[in-house]
Every structure is written in C-alpha cells, then in structure tokens.
C-alpha cells in the first residue's frame, strides 16, 4: 500500500503527459499512413506551435486554451502549404528525398527559432498554473496540476475528433482511399495532391492543439521539439505505423513508462529507456506491438 502512494501520482502524471504524446503521435501517424513518409520536421513544427502559443499569450494576452481556434487553423495552413509548396515538389519520385527534405525543414525551423528567439527557455504565467486538483480513488490519493488535467482531457477529445474525421467524413474516406491505393483513388476522381496536403495539414493541426494544451504546464525553447519527436516516433512504431488506436494506446503507455522510469531510475536514464525501447521495437517488431498491419 505504501508503494501505491508513490506510484499512483506518478502513473497519473504519466497518463496526462501520455495523452499529449498520443495527440502528437496521431498527427505523425496520419502523415505516415497516408503519405508513407516520415515527417522529420514534426518536432520542429511542434516547437513553432509552442512559440505561437507563447507569443499569443505574451504579446496579445490570449489565454493558451483560447488560442486553440487560432493555432489549429494556423498550423493546418502551414502544413498544407509546406506539403504542396515544398515537400511534394521535392520527391522526384523517391521517398529518400522526402526524408531529406523534412530533415532540412526541421533544421531550418529549429535554427531560425534559435536565431530570432535565442536559446532561452521560456514559460508563461496563467492564473491556473499552480492550481492543483485532488484525485482520490479510495485506496490512493494524488494532487495533480490543473493544466495537466486539462491537457489530458483536451488531448483525448482532440484525438477522438481526429479519429471521427478520418473515420466518418467524406474527407476521411478520401484520405483512407488514398492511403490504401492512390492510383485507384485518382481514377475515382479524388484529387490526390489535395488529399496529401490535407493530411499533412491535419497532422500539423494536431500539433497546434497539442501546443495549446502543453504550454501552460511546460516550457518552450528552440530544441524542445527534439525530445518530443523521438518519443512520437517511438509511439508510432510501437502502435504500428499508421494505426490510430495504436498511437493512442502507445502514447499513454509511453507516458506512464517514462514517468515510472524517471521515478525509479532517475530523469536521464528514464529517457534512455525510451530510446532503447524504440530501438528494440524497430529491430524486433517493426510492425508494432498492437497491430499486425503491414
């Protein structure tokens, strides 16, 4: 029972982080599932979104949660433009080129941020930053920061919305058709380029939402994306490339593993755990833990 007193808050903490991880990973897995490319610029795009939320708060006084209707469309447009204007043109029919172009984009974004915003780590102050909520499930109690709870709920809702969009709408049907068989989809009159760009846009829009939920309890600096991008890759691989439910479960799992690893092994070694898990899954089960989808 005494163990539970330490473990329960840690698990809760992991779940809240994990939900945000899941949202980030959903964007990545959508892009992978449809375009069959790995978006190396995902972390850098998240970093840009976090700066967006930061400046909206600092310069315009807009609360991070109220910034959602600004950040989500803004990131969507960035993604749509990048895919149509740069990434799509760079492929020349080879996947390697896309890999390299997204790497190039991430280098540019990260270092432009370094150039303009310096390497300072920045945080925002809100009225609810330090508010905590007690959670009691009978045999264990924990205090959890309100922003983390909101992030948990918000990320889950956003994930469900995304899954509904892909599963239930005409756009989603077009996305799934292109993902499965792009030539067939083209013959059915689907504008494949447009669907590619929409998918990339939605993938980055997830980051816009994640940034709004993340910043009140987190920080931003030019390198902040790096930590997330490998975690997101791990989740995507763990959940099975292109699988939504896998990404959702994988995100929560990784969040808990990281939190418990940090508690038991210390901060930096907990991080190593994720990388080792990532390497191990890539090597031994590249189809993912949950799905057998090729």
């Amino acid at each position: 029972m005494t163990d539970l007193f330490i473990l329960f808050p840690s698990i809760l903490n992991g779940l809240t982080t994990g939900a945000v991880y899941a949202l980030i990973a959903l964007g990545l897995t959508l892009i992978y599932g449809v375009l069959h490319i790995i978006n190396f610029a995902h972390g850098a795009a998240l970093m840009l979104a976090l700066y967006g939320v930061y400046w909206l708060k600092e310069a315009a006084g807009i609360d991070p949660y109220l910034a959602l209707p600004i950040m989500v469309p803004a990131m969507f447009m960035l993604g749509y433009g990048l895919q149509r204007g740069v990434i799509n043109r760079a492929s020349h029919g080879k996947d390697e080129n896309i890999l390299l172009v997204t790497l190039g984009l991430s280098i540019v974004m990260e270092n432009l941020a370094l150039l303009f915003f310096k390497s300072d780590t920045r945080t925002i102050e809100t009225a609810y930053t330090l508010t905590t909520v007690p959670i009691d499930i009978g045999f264990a109690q924990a205090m959890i920061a309100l922003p983390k709870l909101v992030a948990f709920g918000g990320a889950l809702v956003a994930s469900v919305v995304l899954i509904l969009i892909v599963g239930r709408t005409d756009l989603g049907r077009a996305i799934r058709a292109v993902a499965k068989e792009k030539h067939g989809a083209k013959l059915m009159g689907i504008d494949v380029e447009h669907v590619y760009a929409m998918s990339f846009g939605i993938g980055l829009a997830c980051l816009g939402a994640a940034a709004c939920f993340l910043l009140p309890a987190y920080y931003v600096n030019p390198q902040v994306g790096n930590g997330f991008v490998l975690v997101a890759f791990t989740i995507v691989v763990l959940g099975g490339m292109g699988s939504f439910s896998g990404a959702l479960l994988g995100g929560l799992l990784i969040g808990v593993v990281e939190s418990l690893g940090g508690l038991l092994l210390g901060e930096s070694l907990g991080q190593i755990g994720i990388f080792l898990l990532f390497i191990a899954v890539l090597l031994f089960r590249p189809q993912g833990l949950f799905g057998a989808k090729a």
Partner: protein
Amino acid sequence: MTDGTRTRMPALHKELLRIAIFAVGVALLLNVLDSGVALNFVMMALYAALLAQAWNILGGYGGQFSFGHALFFGTGAYVQAIAQIDGGLNPWLAMPLGVLASAGVGVFVGALSFRYGLKGSYFALVTLAFAEVFRIVALSVPFTGAGVGLMVPLREGFGNMQFGSRRGFALMVLGLVVLALLVTCWLRHSRFGAYLQAVRDNEDAARAAGVNPFRIKLGAIALSGGFMGAGGAFYVQAFQYIDPGIAYGAHTSVEALVGAIVGGMGTLWGPLIGALALHVLADLTRNLFGQLPGINMVIYGVVLVLMILFAPRGLGGLGRSVRELWKGRTK
C-alpha cells in the same frame, strides 16, 4: 547515381592521377599560404570534406541514409581523448584505436539493423536514436568527463600530434581526405564496390545474383564509420577538447550528410565540392551578418532543401547536366 556502369579501367588511372594532382596542389597551397585565417579556412574545409566523404561511402555508394553519423565521430573522438588522458597512449597510436572503435560501433549498429532488414526511414531513425543514446550515456558516465567534457593537455610537438601551427593540422587532414578519396576510388573500381552499388540499386536482384547484402552493407558501414572516427580523432587533436554535445550532437551528422548531398551522392569529388561550397557560403554569411547563433545551420538546411528541390543529383550532377548540354547530348 548510376555512375557505376560508366567506369572502366582507364578511368581508374585518370582518377588516380586527379587525386595525386589534388594532393600535391593543396599541399603546395598550404606551404605558400601564410595567414592563420587562410590556413584555418583550408583546414576546416578539408575537415568538413572528410566527414562528407565518410557519409558518402555508406549513404552515396551504399544507399543507406544515416541521420546519426555523429555516433562514429564521437566514438573516435572519445577514444582518442581517453586513450591519451587515462591510458597515457601516444596520439599516433590512439588514432588507429579510435578508428577501429568507430568501425566496431558501425559493425554493431549495422549488424543489428541490417539483420532485421531495416532500410530507408527506419535505418535513419535507428542511427539517430543510437547517436542520442550515446550522447545521453556520455553525459552521465564519469570517464567521458560528463557535461564538463575532456581537455587534452597541451604538449606541442610532432610526436604528440600537436603541430605548432594550423599548417600541420591542415596537412594531416589533407592526408586523411586523400586516403578517403583513394578508398572511394577503390569502391568505384573494385568487386566490393560493385557489389555495394548493386545492393544500393536493387537489393533483391543483387541477392539473386549471389551477393550477400548483409555482409556488403556491414563492410560499408565499418568503412564509413572508420573515416568518421578519424574525423573525430582529428577534431580532438586540433581543438584539444570534446564534450557530449560536440561528439554526439546532431550538428556533425547534419554537416556530413548535407556536404555529401550538396556535392552529389555516390560520386568521387562530390562530397569535397559540397563541403567546400558550404564552407565558403558559411564564411560569407559570417562576414555579412557576424557570428549569430544557428545561422550556419539555417544555411545548411536551406541549401539542403533547395538542392533536393532543384538539383537532387548535387552540384556534381548539375555540372554533368551542363556538360551534357554543351556536348549536345541532352538525354
């Protein structure tokens, strides 16, 4: 990319002659140059060329895109530093050790990833993750000096591989670059190189023809890692300092990869041309805007994107297209 079929024996002599002219020419230039700034420029450009050539062996000729070549660079650098500081080894003896260790790390990572058939994006991700793991380990174990880094004590003298001027270091890295050129030349004309390019162009067809892709790729990653390790050892000797960020950070991986891609992957002179072009560009911006954080990397990123957009065969490929136009042989 499809250079391999064009080359025949006489071309080998031509290439060797060109390498000899390059070696003598740069050596003479280094002896004439007097200003420290100019010597430093040539040294750093050659150093960048060495990294790009190392990446080119695996990425250009083997078609395996590593995003974490700093893994080998850092290993070479740390072995070079630790063997001297803790082992009391002479740097000239430490260097081959560092090269061997880097090649060994290459074989280890290669054996793991190629055995399970990782390629393309998956291979890029695994190398990136390994570099990151090594960086975190280097930050937390005592014998790398953790975050403080390692300082190699100053003991000037040829016997200690600490030349009085930049000229000595420039000549040393020139030697390594020439060695890398010769190995690349060998790749272009040897059986092993032919196998490697066959695996790059079509692995299944190569296997059907009796090539063992696993062993070939392992050889390539060991060679590539070895040269990257030599680059790391050189860095330690020239700057006498190494820390986890320099050793295993993304900057070195990016520099190696962009140099090779800008110049032209899978070509003999491409990485050299690419590294030189990037260096001139970086120097120009430094003169224009002063030393701003991140500006170099912004340029590298922009150049990388532009090259892939408009000249995916690199500067060398661009030159070839122009030549072909000139001869009226537009493909």
